[in-house]
C-alpha cells in the first residue's frame, strides 16, 4: 500500500531534522502528544517504558501510554480493534515481519526524513533495518535488541565438571554436557517447556551448525534448503539437548528452574539475553553464572536477532504528529537507547554505542561485541522462535513441528525435517 505523506508532516519532519533538541518548543502551536500501546506494564519492561515516557515529558510532550498486560497477542487484539474502529494509536509495539503484515491494513507514517536526519541507517544491522521498512520506507523503529541464543553456564555445574573453557562449537558443547553429567550435574541443560523455549533450541542448533542454511531455509523458506542435511543435523542436535533436559518441566516457564541452574543441578541454558535480567532480579550474582554467545561450528559468533520495535500509525491531529516525530527522535537517540537497555538488560539497536562504561554488564558487552562480529561475518540472522523470521502463522506452523519433536522422542530427525518442510508448504 502506498504511503502518502502530507505536506504538513514533511514540514514537521524537516523542521525536526534542523532543530533537534529545541524541536518541541519550536513547533509552538501543537504540544507534542503521543498515544501508545504496548504489553509492557510490569517488571523491567514496565520500568523502561515509564522512563522513556518521563524523557518524552521532559521534552515537553504529553505521554499517553496504555499498557495491555499479558501476551503479545492481547496487545494485538486491542490494536486490531482500534484500527478497525479507525482510531489507531499514534504508535504501538510491533515487531518483525508483523510490521509488514499490519502495515497493509492501515496507513503508517513515513519516517524516512527523521531517520535520515539522525543518520540511523548506518548503525542498524541490515537484516533488522529491512524489517522496519517493508515497502522501502521506514515506518517503524527498533528499540532494543536481544540475542535468543546466548549460552548461560552455571559456575557450580562447571566446577562439578572440572571445566573452565566456554564451549564454542556444538561438539564442545556436547563434550561439556557429558562431563557435567559424569560430574554429577543432574540435568546438563536447564530449560522451560514453552513453545518459544523449544523453538529456541532448534534455531540455536541450526544457526550454529550453518548460518547460511538458516538464512535460506528458515528466513527465505527455500524449498531446497529445507531439505538440506543441515536441517536433519540440527534436529539431531536438538534431540541431544532434549535428552539432557529435565523432562518434568511440562509447560513451565524457564525461570522456574533458575535456582537449580545456579545451584549446579542444571548446567547450561540456551536462552535470550533477557535471562540475565531475570537472574539478577531473582537475587543471583554475576559470579554465579557466565554468559557467552551460543555455539557456532565455524567459531565466529552467530547472533539470532530479536528486537522490540514501535510502529507509527498515521494520524491527522497536529499534536499527535509532533508527538510521533519527537518519539522517533527519542527512540533513535543513543542516550535513550542506553537508558532503556540498562534497565531491561538488552543491548542497544545502534551498533555505535560504547558499552565500556558503568551500568553495562559483561554479558551485555559480550552480546554487543557478538552482534558486531556477526554482522561483519554475515551471521546475524532473525529469530524464528520469537517471531522475527516469519509472520505469526508460518512461525506457529513450524514451531508445532519443533515442539512436538522435542517432547516426542520416537520422532526421528529425518522425520522431523520432512514434517518441517511439509508444515511450511501447507502454511504458505
Amino acid at each position: 500500500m502506498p504511503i502518502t505523506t502530507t505536506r504538513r508532516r514533511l514540514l514537521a519532519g524537516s523542521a525536526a531534522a534542523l532543530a533537534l533538541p529545541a524541536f518541541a518548543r519550536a513547533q509552538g502551536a501543537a504540544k507534542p502528544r503521543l498515544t501508545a500501546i504496548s504489553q509492557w506494564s510490569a517488571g523491567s519492561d514496565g520500568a523502561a517504558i515509564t522512563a522513556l515516557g518521563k524523557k518524552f515529558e521532559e521534552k515537553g510532550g504529553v505521554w499517553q501510554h496504555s499498557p495491555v498486560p499479558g501476551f503479545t497477542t492481547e496487545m494485538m487484539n486491542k490494536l486490531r480493534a482500534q484500527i478497525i474502529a479507525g482510531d489507531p494509536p499514534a504508535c504501538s509495539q510491533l515487531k518483525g515481519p508483523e510490521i509488514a503484515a499490519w502495515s497493509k491494513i492501515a496507513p503508517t507514517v513515513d519516517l524516512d526524513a527523521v531517520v535520515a536526519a539522525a543518520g540511523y541507517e548506518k548503525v542498524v544491522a541490515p537484516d533488522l533495518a529491512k524489517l522496519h521498512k517493508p515497502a522501502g520506507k521506514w515506518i517503524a523503529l527498533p528499540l532494543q535488541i536481544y540475542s535468543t541464543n546466548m549460552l548461560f553456564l552455571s559456575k557450580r555445574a562447571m566446577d562439578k565438571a572440572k571445566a573452565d573453557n566456554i564451549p564454542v562449537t556444538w561438539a564442545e558443547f556436547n563434550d561439556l554436557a557429558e562431563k557435567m553429567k559424569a560430574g554429577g550435574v543432574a540435568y546438563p541443560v536447564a530449560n522451560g517447556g514453552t513453545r518459544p523455549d523449544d523453538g529456541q533450541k532448534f534455531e540455536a542448533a541450526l544457526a550454529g551448525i550453518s548460518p547460511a542454511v538458516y538464512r535460506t531455509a528458515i528466513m527465505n523458506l527455500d524449498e531446497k534448503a529445507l531439505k538440506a542435511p543441515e536441517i536433519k543435523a540440527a534436529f539431531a542436535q536438538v534431540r541431544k539437548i532434549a535428552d539432557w533436559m529435565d523432562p518434568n518441566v511440562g509447560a513451565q516457564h524457564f525461570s522456574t528452574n533458575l535456582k537449580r541452574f545456579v545451584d549446579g543441578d542444571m548446567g547450561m541454558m540456551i536462552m535470550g539475553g533477557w535471562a540475565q535480567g531475570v537472574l539478577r532480579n531473582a537475587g543471583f550474582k554475576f559470579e554465579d553464572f557466565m554468559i557467552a554467545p551460543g555455539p557456532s561450528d565455524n567459531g565466529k559468533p552467530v547472533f539470532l536477532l530479536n528486537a522490540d520495535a514501535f510502529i507509527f500509525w498515521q494520524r491527522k491531529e497536529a499534536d499527535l504528529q509532533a508527538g510521533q516525530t519527537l518519539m522517533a527522535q527519542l527512540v533513535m537517540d543513543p542516550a535513550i537507547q542506553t537508558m532503556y537497555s540498562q534497565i531491561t538488560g538488552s543491548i542497544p539497536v545502534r551498533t555505535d554505542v560504547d558499552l565500556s562504561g558503568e551500568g553495562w554488564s559483561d554479558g551485555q558487552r559480550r552480546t554487543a561485541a557478538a552482534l558486531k562480529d556477526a554482522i561483519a561475518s554475515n551471521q546475524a540472522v532473525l529469530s524464528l522462535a520469537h517471531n522475527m523470521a516469519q509472520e505469526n502463522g508460518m512461525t506457529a506452523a513450524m514451531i508445532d513441528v519443533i515442539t512436538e519433536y522435542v517432547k516426542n522422542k520416537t520422532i526421528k530427525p529425518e522425520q522431523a525435517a520432512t514434517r518441517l518442510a511439509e508444515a511450511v508448504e501447507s502454511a504458505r
Partner: protein
Amino acid sequence: MIRRLPEILTIWVPLLLSAAHLITFTLWTIWISFTPSTLVPVTGWVGLRNYSAVAASRNWQIAFDNLLLFGSAFVLLSLATGLILAILLDQRIRCENLLRSIFLYPLAVSFVVTGTVWSWLLNPGLGIQKLVHDLGWTSFRFDWLIDRDMAIWTIVIAAIWQSSGFAMALFLAGLRSVDADLIKAAQIDGAGPVRMYRRVILPTLWPITITVIVIQLQFAISTFDLVRALTNGGPGIATQLPALVVYDLMFQRSLLGRGAAAAVLMLLILLAVLLPYAAWRYVQRRRAIHA
C-alpha cells in the same frame, strides 16, 4: 401494558438482546469462515477452502481425536462419580450439608485456578509423584502430565474433580424426589438395598441422567481455560482441543478465516449433541400431553 412493564424490561429485553447478539455473531462467524480474512475481516469468497485447510491440519486432527476421548471419558466418569457420591450421601448420614458443600465447592472455582493447581499437583517434579518419592516409595511413577499419550487424562482428572459435584447435586435431587410409597412397596416385597437401587430407584433417574450428559458434553466440547492452564495443549501438541485450535488460529496465527471455520466446525459438533436432545425433549413433551 404498564402492569407488564417489569416483565418486559427484566425478561424480554435482555432475552431479545442476547438472542440478537448470539444470532448476529454466529452468522458473522459463518460468513467470515468463507472469506480469505487473515489479520482483519475482509470480503471475498473462498468457498470451503478454510474448512479443508483446518480439517487437513495436524492440530485439528489431534484436537478432534482428543475431544472424542476426553468427551466420552469425562462424561462417563463424572456421571459415575456423581451418582456414587449422591447414593452415598442419600444414606441419611450425619453432616450431609457439610459434605454436600465440600463436593459442590470445586464448581465455584474458576477453571483457570483448577488447571493451575492441578498442573502443580500433577507435575512429577513438584506434586504427587515427588510427595510419594519423599515418603520413601521411590519407584512410584505418576507422570501423565509430561507423557504425551497420557496427558489428556490429566485434563479428564481435573475436569471430573471440578464438575462431578454438579452431577451429584442433580442426582441427589432426583433420588430425593423418588416416590416414598414406591420405596415402601419395594421394601414390603422384600427388596434389599442393592436391588432397590437397581430396579426401583435408578430407573426413575434416567431423565436426569440425560440432562447431565448433555450439559457435561457441551462443557467438554467448549473446554478451553482448563486445558490452557493445565497443559496449554502440550506436551508438544498432544492435548490440543478444538477451542484451543480456534483461539490459536484466530489470535496467535492471525488467520481469522480459518479460525472462524474451526469455530463453525465446533458449532456443528455441538449441534450434533443438542439437536437429538431437543428432539428427545419434544417427543417427551408430546407424550406427556397425550398421556
